[in-house]
């Protein structure tokens, strides 16, 4: 799968965004979006952060859907958790900054960025600083809830690698 496949797959994704943004969900809207997307993607060029392979594509799409659902549940949970702490008269929290390794051997910056994004939307955690793509420094609202951070990161890394076609 070369440059053309990359441009086409990116353009299909961007066309869907285009349809949403212009609120014209029909074939015409899709084609206009597709033409614009092809132009934009060809101009930006192919920065290889994801590998698209036809044989792996179904698995990648399934993991992506699973990842989105997982993130949605986590966002809802984290919001209720933070809301509960905020409304408690005693303000129960033990804030602190912990170091979490990304555990990625290739030190891929895309994976580090996506991990930090996922962490920042999970319960009471907020990525503050990076040490290259190796270690993330995370501010936690409650350091007790952060003891599982390493395991969560391992699971997240596996999902992200599947989505990006690296495993």
């Amino acid at each position, binding site marked *: 799968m070369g440059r053309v496949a990359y441009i086409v797959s990116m353009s299909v994704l961007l066309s869907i*965004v285009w*349809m*949403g*943004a212009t*609120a*014209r*969900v029909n074939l015409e809207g899709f084609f206009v979006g597709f033409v614009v997307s092809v132009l934009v993607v060809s101009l930006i060029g192919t920065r290889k952060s994801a590998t698209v392979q036809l044989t792996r594509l179904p698995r990648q799409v399934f993991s992506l859907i699973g990842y989105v659902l997982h*993130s949605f549940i986590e*966002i*809802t949970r*984290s*919001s209720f958790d*933070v*809301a509960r702490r*905020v*409304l408690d008269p005693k*303000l129960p*929290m*033990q*804030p*602190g*900054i*912990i*170091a979490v390794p990304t555990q990625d051997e290739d030190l891929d910056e895309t994976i580090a960025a996506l991990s*930090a*994004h996922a962490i*920042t*939307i999970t319960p*009471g955690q*907020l*990525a*503050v*600083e*990076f*040490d*290259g793509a190796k270690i993330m*420094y995370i*501010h936690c*609202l409650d*350091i007790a809830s952060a003891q599982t951070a390493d395991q969560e990161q391992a699971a997240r890394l596996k999902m992200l690698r599947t989505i990006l076609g690296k495993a």
Partner: protein
Amino acid sequence: MELRELLGLAALYFGIAFSVIGVIGMMRLPDVYTRLHASGKVSTLGLWGILLGAALLLDGVFPRALALAVFLVLVQPIASHAIAAAARRSGVPMAHSFRDDMPPIDNLSSEAEQP
């Protein structure tokens, strides 16, 4: 009243309630870092509720509301991270710190070595 209208209003009030909780958090929590938790995440769910309410109550808004919701969840953590990193780099202390694994910024290897 139609069911759709009722659900829309419920989503709208849910969103407003969460936004209010976000503001209460901003006022109650002690420092920048903890306040970012309240402002960022709680307001994400609050805005989702308001967008869902708009999508249910108004006609033909759904695709745009969906695009906005996705955009919000992609962008909001970046904003939180940028504010937190800026605060940390300019040496804003934590109000109560139970643990701090992070070395001073100068000791991080990243900035100097990367091309």
